[in-house]
């Protein structure tokens, strides 16, 4: 064992103390900010605010909650999840594998389940590299993650075709491919095109899709509250966070919004908005700029939902959020799914179990590659670093 746990224990203790006490700082200010929130005024401020972080825009109101609707007697849920074998930089053979798990569960009379997984290996030049005229980007890391997200959604579209309505599609994680904002255009188009096609196919089939984010770290609504307590507008200035933050260093300025605690939205909705188990917040529009490239109907909006064990974030396309009956179906289905699997949607749990590639399976694929190459007279030469890690000695 080379990690000296004792050496970091003291620091961890301090961190735990700060985490436990830190969330209480500014609690009263947050309660007051919510209570005194002037939504019309906030809307006006948001219209002109210059901030570098994401701001939630309420589609109805920032406050207010919707209790869980009755679970339909009959409904279906389709969930897909994916797992990766990443390209191995230390291996002479370059490939990656996407293993997709898919679940179709039907409730009511009769109930039923279809569950399965399928793996696909990608090794062609087109699969391994993206290129425009001047650049060649390997499909790995974050870029491979986009491909997985696309394939998960495409697989859900395939499964929906054989599911009886009403049916809800669930995805694990965000439907906002915000990571593409930092990618070159040709990479963004490569991922976004098929992703948006899949969203469109679901919309045309009138099948709602929802991205479920457990223990979300997002602060879009909290950021909007910060704008609401900003002292720039009373001084006749528009909200300008960059300007305000710069003054911390130049003038020792204390931003007015620092009275609010540094907590994510889930804390706001659990402890201040006090969502009851099963209830959801109103729907918010996201300020993520990648959404400008989504068609208006498929632009992702979100709400917070108390699953019974935590406040989760649920993302849906705008067309789902606009249709009261379909939104209620999504709400009820997720609450029901969470009640079946201790706070996390059962269908997503099972899709994950089908998709996950375990360590021994990863090793089995490596051994298979070694053996197949050996059959063709190629002795696998891994990198010296990799060999050093595999054959440890003293």
């Amino acid at each position, binding site marked *: 064992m080379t990690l000296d746990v004792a050496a970091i224990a003291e620091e961890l203790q301090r961190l735990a103390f700060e985490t436990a006490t830190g969330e209480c700082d500014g609690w009263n200010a947050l309660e007051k900010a919510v209570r005194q929130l002037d939504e019309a005024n906030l809307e006006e401020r948001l219209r002109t605010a210059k901030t570098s972080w994401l701001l939630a825009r309420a589609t109805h109101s920032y406050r207010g909650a919707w209790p869980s609707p009755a679970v339909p007697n009959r409904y279906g849920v389709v969930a897909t999840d994916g797992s990766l074998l990443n390209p191995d930089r230390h291996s002479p053979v370059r490939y990656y594998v996407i293993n997709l798990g898919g*679940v179709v*569960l*039907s409730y009511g009379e*009769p*109930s039923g*389940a279809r*569950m399965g997984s399928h793996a696909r290996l990608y090794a062609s030049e087109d699969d391994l590299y993206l290129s425009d005229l001047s650049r060649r980007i390997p499909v790995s890391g974050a870029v491979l993650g986009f491909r997985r997200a696309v394939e998960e959604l495409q697989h859900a579209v395939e499964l929906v075709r054989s599911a009886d309505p009403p049916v809800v599609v669930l995805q694990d994680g965000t439907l906002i491919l915000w990571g593409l904002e930092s990618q070159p255009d040709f990479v963004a188009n490569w991922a976004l095109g098929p992703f948006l096609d899949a969203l469109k196919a679901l919309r045309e089939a009138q099948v709602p899709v929802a991205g479920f984010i457990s223990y979300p770290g997002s602060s879009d609504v909290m950021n909007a509250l910060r704008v609401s307590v900003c002292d720039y507008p009373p001084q006749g200035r528009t909200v300008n966070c960059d300007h305000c933050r710069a003054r911390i260093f130049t003038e020792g300025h204390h931003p007015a919004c620092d009275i609010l605690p540094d907590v994510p939205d889930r804390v706001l909705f659990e402890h201040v908005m006090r969502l009851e188990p099963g209830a959801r917040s109103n729907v918010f529009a996201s300020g993520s700029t990648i959404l400008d490239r989504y068609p208006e109907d498929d632009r992702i909006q979100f709400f917070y939902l108390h699953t019974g064990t935590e406040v989760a974030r649920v993302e849906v396309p705008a067309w789902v959020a606009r249709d009261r009956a379909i939104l209620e179906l999504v709400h009820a289905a997720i609450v029901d799914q969470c009640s079946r699997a201790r706070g996390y949607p059962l269908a997503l749990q*099972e899709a994950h*179990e089908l998709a996950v590639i375990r360590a021994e399976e990863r090793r089995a694929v490596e051994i298979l590659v070694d053996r197949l190459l050996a059959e063709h007279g190629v002795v696998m030469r891994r990198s010296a670093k990799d060999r050093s890690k595999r054959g440890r000695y003293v």
Partner: protein
Amino acid sequence: MCDQSGAERVGEIIETSTVGFVAECDELHCLPPLGSLVRVRGAEGEVIYAVVTYGETGSIDPGRRVVRRGSADLRDQAIYQRNPELRHVLRSVFSAAAIAYRRGDRLSYLLPPLPPPLHFSVERVSLPEAQEVTDQPRYFAILAQYRGEIPADQLLAAHARYLYDVRQSDRDWLERAARELARIFKHDYDRLVPLLEALDPDLA
């Protein structure tokens, strides 16, 4: 819950050895009864006969524990109706001990020369075939030496009881079986008597 009639196939071999195999049932809970006779067609055309020695139902993934799903208002079969995924995440498996094999017309009460191949089908044995294979209970000695999840005596008793029913209370066969048990356990009266009692209280 489980319709045992109809299809011959009950499951598929997932572990195999010279002395027997473990099979996973095609349908959850559709286990062949303890002591019943099953068969496998081997890779070389031989038919291997085996006696079911153990059955269990649990999670497919050993890392996932089975948890309670029911309540006072939701129980038994209704739990499966409400949780349709259970049929995909649970499985029933059973073990069987080889007792004989048939090659051509010849039936040998010996362990098979080769274990049955993995993934081959395990089938129920039809009534006439079971009657033919078990007509002479000489293979009881193989079962008497069984070492596994349950005591050998329990296995023998369950097997004899199953055959007595299959053979429609054939008293002649019962006497042959009792004589064979008496021969095997002639030096172990304490084991013999409970076995005969299990078979038929009148025999003890």
